[in-house]
């Protein structure tokens, strides 16, 4: 995707975000809406100005590896599912392995060791030592 297109897509996303805040905010009683409506209205104006400026600007193209970016965010979503189903320790270990593999790790055994150690570290430090409640897996029950 070209830089200018991405800039515009992002700005349109922001415009939508601020627009929703403004429209929803207008339905609230006076006090709770005062500052959100003011801030969203001002932000909309700023975004519109930035859109106009974006059309006039020349941008240096981005050098982003979008495949790796896609892998990273897809892995983050996968991690959420894995943690929900397997619990924090196992889900974290699986996530580390999957993302590491997608990012191009060639040493699978090392990666498996790192993933396993991470899961164990999370369990020992947060569950056992700090006694913090971590997400419990639906399937595993721990």
């Amino acid at each position, binding site marked *: 995707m070209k830089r200018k297109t991405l800039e515009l897509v992002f700005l349109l996303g922001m415009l939508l975000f601020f627009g929703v805040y403004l429209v929803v905010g207008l339905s609230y009683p006076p006090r709770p809406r005062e500052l959100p409506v003011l801030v969203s209205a001002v932000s909309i104006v700023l975004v519109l100005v930035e859109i106009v400026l974006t059309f006039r600007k020349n941008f240096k193209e981005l050098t982003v590896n979008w495949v790796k970016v896609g892998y990273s965010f897809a892995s983050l979503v996968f991690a959420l599912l894995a943690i929900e189903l397997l619990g924090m320790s196992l889900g974290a270990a699986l996530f580390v392995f999957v993302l590491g593999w997608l990012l191009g790790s060639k040493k699978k055994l090392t990666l498996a060791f790192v993933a396993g150690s991470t899961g164990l570290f999370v369990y020992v430090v947060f569950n056992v030592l700090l006694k*913090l409640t971590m997400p419990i897996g639906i399937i595993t029950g721990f």
Partner: protein
Amino acid sequence: MVLQGLLLALSPATIITILVGVFLGIIVGIVPGVGAGVGLALLLPLIFSAPPLIGLMLLLALWAADGYGASITSILINVPGGPGAVATSFDGYPMAQQGKAAVAIGLSMASSMVAGIIGTVVLMVASPPLAELAVKMGPPEYTVLAVFGLTIIGGLTSKDPLKGLIAAGFGLLISFMGYDLLTGFVRYSFGWQHLYDGIDFGLAVIGIFAIGSLVDAAQEGGTISAMSKVDGSTWEGFKLAFKKYPMAMIRGSLVGAVLGILPGIGISISSLVAYDVEKRVSKHPETFGKGAPEGVIGPEAANNSVQPANLIPVLTLGIPGGATSAVFLGALIMYGLTPGLDLFRNQGNVVWGMFWGIIIASIAYVAVGMLFAGFFAKVTLIPVEYLIPVTLVTCFVGAFTLNGKFPDMVLAVAMGVVGYLMLVLKYPVAPAVLGVVLGPMLERNYFRSLLISGGTHAIFFQGSIVWVLWALTAFALVYPYFVSYKERKKGKRIPIEVTGG
């Protein structure tokens, strides 16, 4: 009492306690989401049987070292270990990318030590009068203070202020989610019960800041250090701070000490203010965001002098300035020590022992830090395919531990997408973070002021403190233009770059 306190602080038992506390503080500081507050809360039941000074020193040493620990991940992998370390990453991380991670840690160590000492001296000397000043700050003063805080955006985004303001608007609106604090009206939850309590500031930092930059590092591949080696040493950074930037350490420490006294202002704002101050006074503002040493020193000094300053309202008035000081207040009460003048009169030894103990802790974390700093710096040489997934796990853990809720992890990922886009499209992230911090403070105090005044806005222009704050706000707004005008008159144009994440 002063000397007796010093002798108590120098006893072997106290020294060992301080070293243990410092070690634990660095550990909790490193993990995002698990800050000093959690550390103190976990230690609270364990110190009950210990003598007051020993128990309290363990807590204070942990608290003191937390700021330094939080800066380590901020510098190495651009993941602030706590809200106070956000500003440290603006220049600390670029230094790590240039292979100067060890130097940056050394700068952080030196400024943290100096700030701990300066902050404690301020605590020793100025506790009663400063506490009185803090009490005089009412809702109108806090409202204007929040406005002053927002003027920092100008300093953080001088190349493209429009993008900075859009980012700030985004942050402010995020902060308005959930219960309206005065009316109880639920806003912008979109029917999702989880948003009733709004979005935690720490969550915004993890999502927008940490996840976004980690994904960026992942796609670049290789190692964090672009040089694939670590140049310089921690000792070099430590010496550099004293040799070339002593004033930056003092300025940052004073910013932290002053802002730390005000209950509720907190560590995050003071480090951003200190960063802004350093950029404004620098002769080379264009180097900020690209690895300027002062960009590490200022925020680090501020966030470490906040801790002793936070103690001023706690010890003199029993008013905690934040969650961590609230836990510490609980510890004082647990020992039967009631804050106020009587505490200084009847338990002077313990109080002065604590003061000296913080100074010793400030020196101790340099010693402990030196031992491990070389090891920490090598983290930047780990290939990203191992480092980034493991660090993202700490982000998940941090997001979850904030409120113990799974949806927070979902929100962190969603905000990570926004944070990543902001990063690649050169939207400064700092104003968004600032907006999330200042939004609730601004709104709550704005409406409280109007309730007090019966709806008239004249209240924001009454009283000397308010006027001082307005003057500071005006100064912060005008100063960059004044400098630019002066330079133009000299015929020398200083280019100012976008910084602040």
